[in-house]
């Protein structure tokens, strides 16, 4: 019997810990750009990772098949592949499937079998169930099941590519220099208690939501206990997984605007809330009362992306680094400024956001919401 939880957390620790480099870039005009820049930028922060995980999230990736859910799946063996493929064909209308193109000579550690499937839910969903919910359930079933298989990307017109190796080597392996997207996120990992497993690398994703993360959440136990009430199974036992589920709950299921979801993860201090205008104060008190258990406590920086937007956020006392920058239509987020300067030396603006201050950049609105607030500060 295969167990993804065992592989993610082989020593059965409270959770899997990791530190990291993170990078994100969005072209707010929606223009799709190649990955060379992002790959160079994350490679420049080589020393922040240790070769045990690298990965990328790309949006605007599959314009020809943008209406289908793109499932990226890794398999440990052919038997698991056959079983899961049978399951996929029973559960979805598979429009297209193929091996994920790879460079076999790349310096990565023991690559699994990697395939992608473009699927429609069609008439498979239960009565009254939304397509998204249906896909989430199937993904959880495969990932929590007994086959050596792991769905590591499941959104539309986007994809996650990740593996064991330095991020630049993972990019080389997946031939990411050949892809284009309007939004790229990247991650280099420095785990302390996990063995090399491809599924454990970042970004972590659920539907089109991806999270790359640098940090360690001290509130993990509280966060996990709360999410379990809403039927999330934290099988990978990583902080990143918990952040992704929290955002899925807040954004997709509870339909909070992303700016408010950010204020749940990095809640303003009570002393700050006490000084707000009455209406705003009522909102933030209610947010903290209701979602206090989703406050992410401890050091973190995250870059969250979903279709059309990218958000950067640090913990409220900013115990992990984040630099933001703007150049024309491009908006950058990075662990280190040097990585941004490397690929765009002549920036319009570069700054360090305040702790807990969300930076949101959206396609077409051109103006990154939240920037003005940061300017004032």
């Amino acid at each position, binding site marked *: 019997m295969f167990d993804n939880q065992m592989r993610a957390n082989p020593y059965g620790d409270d959770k899997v810990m990791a530190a990291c480099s993170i990078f994100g870039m969005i072209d707010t005009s929606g223009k799709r750009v190649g990955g060379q820049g992002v790959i160079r930028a994350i490679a420049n922060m080589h020393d922040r990772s240790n070769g045990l995980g690298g990965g990328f999230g790309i949006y605007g990736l599959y314009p020809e098949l943008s209406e289908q859910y793109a499932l990226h799946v890794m398999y440990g063996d052919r038997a698991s592949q056959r079983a899961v493929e049978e399951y996929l064909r029973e559960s979805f209308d598979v429009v297209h499937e193929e091996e994920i193109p790879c460079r076999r000579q790349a310096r990565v550690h023991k690559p699994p079998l990697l395939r992608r499937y473009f699927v429609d839910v069609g008439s498979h969903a239960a009565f009254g169930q939304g397509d998204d919910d249906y896909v989430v359930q199937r993904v959880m079933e495969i990932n929590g099941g007994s086959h050596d298989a792991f769905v590591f990307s499941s959104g539309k017109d986007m994809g996650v590519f990740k593996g064991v190796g330095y991020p630049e080597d993972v990019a080389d392996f997946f031939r990411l220099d050949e892809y284009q997207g309007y939004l790229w996120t990247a991650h280099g990992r420095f785990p302390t208690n996990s063995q090399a497993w491809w599924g454990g690398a970042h970004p972590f994703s659920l539907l089109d939501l991806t999270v790359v993360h640098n940090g360690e959440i001290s509130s993990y136990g509280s966060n996990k206990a709360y999410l379990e009430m809403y039927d999330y199974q934290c099988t990978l036992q990583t902080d990143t997984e918990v952040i992704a589920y929290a955002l899925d709950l807040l954004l997709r299921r509870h339909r909070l605007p992303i700016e408010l979801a950010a204020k749940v993860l990095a809640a303003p201090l009570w002393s700050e809330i006490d000084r707000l205008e009455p209406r705003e104060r009522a909102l933030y008190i209610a947010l903290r009362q209701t979602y206090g258990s989703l406050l992410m406590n401890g050091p973190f920086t995250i870059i969250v992306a979903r279709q059309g937007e990218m958000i950067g956020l640090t913990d409220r006392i900013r*115990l992990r680094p984040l630099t933001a920058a703007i150049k024309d239509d491009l908006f950058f987020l990075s662990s280190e400024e040097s990585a941004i300067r490397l690929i765009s030396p002549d920036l319009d603006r570069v700054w360090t956001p305040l702790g807990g201050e969300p930076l949101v950049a959206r396609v077409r609105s051109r103006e990154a919401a939240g920037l003005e607030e940061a300017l004032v500060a």
Partner: protein
Amino acid sequence: MASPKLCRRTQLKTYLPTKFIVERDQDRCIQCGVCIRQCGWGVHELDEEDGVVRSHDELCRACHRCVSFCPTGALNIRENTLSYRRNANWRGEVIEDILRQAESGGILLTGMGNDKEYPIYWDHLLLNASQVTNPSIDPLREPMELRTYLGAKPDRLEVDPRTLEVKTPLSSQVGLEVPIMFSAMSFGAISFNVHEALARAATEAGTLYNTGEGGLDRRLYGYGDHTIVQVASGRFGVHQDYLDVGRAIEIKIGQGAKPGIGGHLPGEKVSADVAATRMIPRGTDALSPAPHHDIYSIEDLAQLIYALKEATNYSKPVGVKIAAVHNAAAIASGVVRAGADYVALDGLRGATGAAPKVIRDNVGIPIELALASVDRRLRQEGIRNRASIVVGGGIRNSGDVIKAIALGADVVYIATAALIAIGCHVCQSCHTGRCSWGISTTDPYLAKRINPDIATRRLVNLLRGWSLEIKEMLGGMGINALESLRGNRLHLRAVGLTEAEMNILGVRPAGS
């Protein structure tokens, strides 16, 4: 000089040995008579013939009032180490209980909480701290938040995305600046001055105290915003003004010191003030029935909860206090579904002003186990957010508080610790009404010993000290808000517990 000691009720000569020996250093004693005046039990006496103060050791309860107030430090109290023939079954306490009952023919009464050597699980739980992979936080330099809200939280918050207006109706919440409240102690069981000190300290520290089941003296209505008004089976002192003045209402179903039985305030303690507050004739016994006679089932409880909410226009949380008993998890789940905004669990070691000793010592379960199973059950049922969990019953220090939070509590109740702060030495004699410290008495001569100003300062100091310690421990774990520790059992490890106990507590063994 010892006079023959007789049982008060039956006038039988007692076979009970003396428990404590009063040691008086005659070189230091200046015969000032302070000890004579301070002792509520008449231990010390001036021998008129010799002009020397002597002691009736057999009356001593080891409350140390005389020791604390002797101006020359002439007094010491030690246990009388009278030896019985060694016997694991027929221990001294067992023998003496039988003797006492053979002489009195009644139920043995006692005060305070269970004093037996049942496991104290707090002492088997150890806390975590950050090293390298995440930084610990220094509370002297960084914000550290202890604020907690008591009350039901919604399943989700609906916000208008344009106006950012909250559309979800929110039930009433009480903000607490420290996660520690003063547990229920009734006026009558304790003196007015103690009630006043609790009310003022709760106000100053930004928390709540609890009236207990004896009503609320109108002189304390000014502290209503920091008062939980209790509604118990005797309904003493419950009227519209009382419900209106409190910040929260608590229905008392049970008490950790005496689960399953009611209360009895003897007529001697029902002074004019107590009588007026309880709305009963002066000098009459105040008997609280074992059950509420309008609550014989869970649906009856729901009716009382909503009757109280209706009566107060849904303006304040209504909580329910139960004793920690075997099926606490299922009961708590029912209580939450019945509409309670918080559930207070009172554990095996919870104290009392008076209870049958056999009940205090044998009924109920430790609060740690009850808390862990209630928190787990409410989570399993997906209703943990619908009510706060308050726990009490033997909480001794900030370490116990923070472990309780990590096991799933929102807030803790303290009572014994609060009384110790103002002088109590836990001599377990509250039921006598003769408390030499002026705490559990309504005798004006004794009760005036509690100076409300000083007692308030001592209580506020205690809460401040514990808060500072909690902040240090939180910071050490890399956490800067209390809510991030609530139910976070990963920050606990067990030492010296069985597999079964660890499973119930939901904690892993240390080293794993």
